[in-house]
């Protein structure tokens, strides 16, 4: 493993939502660490808690949500216990975020140039003219054609790909230590997606920013990640180095997910759909959350799968799986 310094260490994060029918645990005891210059991908289907974990770290949970326990250590400070003022200073400066829909995350009544230069004025105390200059430089760096005239336009005049470039320019303006990207290319066409992913890789090599990338697309994970967390129903079910997880997936859910996606150039491949559907978060089974849909449960042990939630069993090489089938590797880590 690399020896890059750890930028963010999340330990046992649990996030709940208050609903009319009681509290629901959206993120259940997840832990990971993010290293300088590396990309960590969280992958999972909708509702698995991948976005909520990012919002928890950023202190951006909606009013119904709250962090029940856990810590997120950034430069020896726990982000989860910071005041909103302290967080405000970090966000956009040391930690920044880009969202799925660039159109709705930009301010619609503010010119692009003003939005980008605002960051330099707020976080770096620059003067108006200085910040304008820096903003222009940023727009050039993210390869926006004709940046001078783009500075004067409003977000609705930009295409989705251009708006996402502006978002990236804003997010990386202060050379943050951490960039959290929540489905940054899901709303974009594939040719634009490849432009944006390429841009993220380029920018990362310059700024050495650690990227936490949230996506549902295994293709994007394979292209971008150094390290992967697979989430299911609020829990991490498998984690490891990207090559380890893709070449040698261990958890039945990870394996099933990989068999269920069509791959270009492999037309003959029959899609193995995962039977059933994701259980609702307020009606979770008492045992393994994937048990009902699992095709491997009958092979070895069964009663444990139904009764007890498996812990994460650490295999080798920083590779872990939350599955009773891996009980022989009894190094429990969580």
């Amino acid at each position, binding site marked *: 493993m690399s020896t890059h310094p750890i930028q963010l260490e999340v330990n046992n994060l649990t996030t709940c939502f208050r609903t009319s029918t009681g509290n629901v645990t959206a993120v259940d005891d997840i832990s990971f660490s993010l290293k300088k210059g590396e990309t960590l991908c969280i992958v999972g289907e909708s509702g698995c808690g991948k976005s909520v974990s990012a919002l928890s770290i950023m202190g951006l949970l909606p009013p119904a949500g709250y962090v029940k326990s856990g810590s997120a250590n950034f430069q020896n400070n726990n982000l989860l216990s910071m005041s909103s003022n302290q967080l405000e200073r970090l966000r956009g400066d040391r930690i920044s975020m880009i969202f799925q829909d660039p159109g709705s995350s930009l301010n619609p009544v503010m010119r692009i140039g003003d939005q980008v230069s605002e960051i330099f004025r707020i976080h770096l105390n620059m003067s108006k003219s200085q910040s304008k200059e820096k903003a222009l430089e940023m727009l050039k760096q993210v390869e926006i054609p004709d940046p001078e005239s783009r500075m004067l336009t409003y977000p609705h005049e930009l295409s989705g790909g251009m708006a996402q470039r502006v978002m990236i320019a804003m997010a990386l303006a202060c050379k943050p230590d951490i960039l959290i990207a929540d489905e940054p290319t899901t709303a974009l066409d594939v040719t634009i997606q490849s432009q944006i992913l390429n841009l993220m890789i380029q920018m990362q090599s310059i700024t050495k920013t650690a990227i936490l990338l949230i996506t549902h697309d295994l293709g994007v994970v394979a292209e971008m990640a150094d390290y992967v967390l697979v989430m299911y129903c609020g829990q991490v079910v498998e984690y490891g180095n990207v090559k380890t997880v893709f070449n040698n997936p261990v958890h039945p859910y990870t394996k099933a997910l990989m068999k269920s996606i069509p791959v*270009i150039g492999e037309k003959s491949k029959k899609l193995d759909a995962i039977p059933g559907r994701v259980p609702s978060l307020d009606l979770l089974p008492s045992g393994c959350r994937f048990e009902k849909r699992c095709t491997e449960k009958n092979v070895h042990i069964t009663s444990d799968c139904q009764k007890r939630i498996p812990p994460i069993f650490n295999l080798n090489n920083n590779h872990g799986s939350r599955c009773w089938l891996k009980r022989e590797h009894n190094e429990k880590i969580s």
Partner: protein
Amino acid sequence: MKKLVEIKNIVKHFPVQKGLFKRTVGLVKAVDDVSFEIYEGETLGLVGESGCGKSTLGKLLVRLINPTLGNVIFDNKNLDSFSNKKLREQRQFFQMIFQDPNSSLDPRSTVGKSIEEGLIIHGIKNKQERQKRIKEMLNLVGISANATERFPHEFSGGQRQRIGIARALILKPKLVVCDEPVSALDVSVQAQVLNLLNELKNELSLTLLFISHNLSVVENISDRIAIMYLGQIIELLDSSKFAVNCKHPYSKALLSAIPMPDPNTRKERIILKGDVPSPINPPKGCRFHTRCPEAMSKCEKIEPLFLELSHDHKASCHLLSN
């Protein structure tokens, strides 16, 4: 093979209106001179980026909108010459499945009613007969028969899409246009719906036009693939040959832009510059020349023809015409 649908030089322009008196100030050329055939029993995949006109083409096919110019010949009948009444009789033979199962089902009508509507309109008078057919159809798409009394919101996205499929198939259509049927679904459910569509196609001997922006999905389900760019089909070929033998620079770029779920081979991608131009003012000459990595001076002036390269492989590019 028999042609089920023949589309001849079809054009659809939408006026852009402005001001108090809705003056027409421009035309969105959503579909611009497209011709192709769909053979009986095949699945034709239609791929393109957003705004390329693929959904408009699907709607033209099932006559949800009328073409500006050109003909749709369905089962040897020219639909343009049909009166509304006669057209309605024909509609049972071509049905559509929509992208968003949340908004394409009536939230205030039970699943049974939604599916039954088509049967009533097309003259199945006997109630028992209708109920029997609905139950059979629900069984076929993997939904329990007691679903008829329940409302769409009680179902998950994947189940709702199954109900949408049941509604489209209840009239035993010959052609089904599927407009992004799995795009709103999660990957694990997406595979279920794709497999279901394939099974139903074989069982009920359907012909499918499968519209999607996702090339991997289309390649998996289709027999032939048509690639669309700015209102035109630019390449059409056998889907098993697509990954190795697509010739048009845009097809190649699309293929290379897809992230592969394999971290061992991070490939060099062809990165297209810029965005898709506006369909109000498409570029002169070849429409792709503004983004094409292999553009020549000829491409800016002369529009390439949609030529046959080999059997069942057509493309429109100057590089290929010599």
